[in-house]
């Protein structure tokens, strides 16, 4: 069994979900352990819905999700989540935010864990700052540290870089790759940037109209050269699926 298994997943938001108005319509995929897994698709195609299902925040109409062999029924510290708008607790400072998970788990060294992770995301010296005084990129790094602090087996990231400017984004991509290599987590990463997906992912799925249109392994050495032919080949492939899908529907 793969690390994450999603089996014929259906989800609709109307109570009258029978009329085929599924946001997610028969989704199947597997994520291997330690894999960097990207989900890409246009706005409103159901990416966040998929992630919320993986996190256990919402329940599928049909189908199951298994993480490490266990059926996902409700949120737990085994599925760490990084939110698009960082969702830090504004009344806690940086270190209290990061230590939230370990403290709740009753760990005595919660603050040591937090300190180590704050160091890892490069925010040493900001421990006592409140989230409102951090920049978007800094807040997002705190969000990542906070999710890592409860040592989840699966890290779910919903467009964590969506609100950042291009330059910070690029820096953060490398940062995330570094953290991923260090922590050896399995990552499900949502994005709507093709380049980001090709740069980061071991495997990409393209979500469109509630279905998976492509499930592609990206086989390239890291660090990836964004101007290399191979990189462009993958980018074109994803573009094609994302933008001229009529053909695919006909086929």
């Amino acid at each position: 069994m793969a690390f994450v298994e999603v089996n014929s997943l259906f989800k609709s938001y109307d109570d009258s979900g029978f009329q085929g108005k599924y946001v997610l319509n028969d989704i199947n995929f597997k994520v291997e352990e330690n894999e960097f897994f990207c989900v890409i698709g246009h706005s409103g195609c159901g990416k966040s819905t998929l992630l919320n299902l993986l996190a256990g925040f919402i329940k599928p109409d049909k189908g199951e999700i298994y993480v490490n062999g266990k059926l996902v029924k409700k949120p737990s510290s085994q599925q760490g989540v990084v939110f698009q708008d960082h969702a830090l607790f504004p009344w806690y400072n940086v270190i209290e935010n990061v230590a939230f998970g370990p403290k709740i788990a009753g760990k005595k060294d919660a603050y040591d864990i937090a300190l180590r992770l704050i160091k890892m995301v490069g925010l040493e010296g900001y421990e006592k700052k409140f989230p409102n005084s951090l920049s978007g990129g800094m807040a997002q790094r705190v969000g990542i540290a906070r999710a890592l602090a409860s040592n989840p087996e699966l890290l779910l990231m919903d467009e964590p870089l969506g609100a950042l400017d291009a330059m910070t984004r690029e820096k953060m991509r490398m940062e995330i790759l570094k953290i991923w290599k260090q922590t050896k987590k399995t990552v499900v990463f949502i994005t709507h940037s093709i380049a980001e997906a090709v740069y980061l992912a071991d495997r990409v799925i393209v979500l469109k109209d509630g279905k998976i249109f492509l499930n592609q392994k990206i086989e390239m050495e890291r660090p990836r050269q964004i101007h290399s032919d191979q990189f462009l080949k993958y980018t074109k492939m994803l573009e094609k699926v994302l933008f001229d899908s009529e053909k695919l529907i006909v086929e």
Partner: protein
Amino acid sequence: MVFNRTAIEETNKKFQQKPEKSVTISQHKKKNHSRSAQSVSLIGFFVIWQVFSSLNAYFDWFNPQFFPSPLIVCRTTWGYIQDGTLISSISASVIRVLSGFVLGTIVGVFLGIIMARSKMLNDLINPVLNMLGPIPVYAFLPIFMIWFGISEVSKITLIAYATFLPVLTYTMDGIKNVNPTWIRSAMSLGANEWQIFNKVILRAALPNVFIGMRISLALAFGALIVAEMMGSSEGLGFIIVNARNWFKLDDMFMSCILIGLLYTLFNYILILFEKILFRWKKDGLQSAIER
């Protein structure tokens, strides 16, 4: 509902504050300007009052006893200080308003939490509150006096009743409007229901509770004075009704000014609490810059 102007102004001010950490010289000047303008306004008020009543005493437009000057009010106050009634009146009023305010706040927060948590209780209690809410609290005083007698209980009950409704409304509102992603992040960090409530929902709603308290404070003072005017033998409200019987307007003026000062002091203490408790908010406004 009487809205507390200072509370609203303070809230507005918070949002208007420029998020600058290093206050420049020009800003310092601006601040000083506004400070001095404010003191000029207060001093001017008393000066004009003094001048007007002196003119009245001189030209005899109307009986000067009906418009005592600030100096006369000061002299009267000195008399009250000397025979000890000032201290006893103020402490009687402060004890009443504090007990009522604290009691009303506790009940308001508690009911607010329960009603925000349970849809059924909300449906049960809300219609009654909607019906009772618009009735001026003062209308209940005679009823309370028959129920509880002309005692401290009836006065404190009235003050608590005046306090509790805004606190309840704002508490409920705060709890209902907690950002759902905060709750989600707490869940995915392993928090159980009690922890989510305690560490996220309450913390997020607390600023709202304080807004409710600031609005209630003005209502509590209103209730205090009315209650003291209608049935008591000491307190600032009592001084007013008692003085009416003897046309002692200077005593009335003194009492009114003292009420204003007391309210300002209490409001200031609340604001101080907010500043300390909600440092995280201020920090955001004052230093929202990349470093």
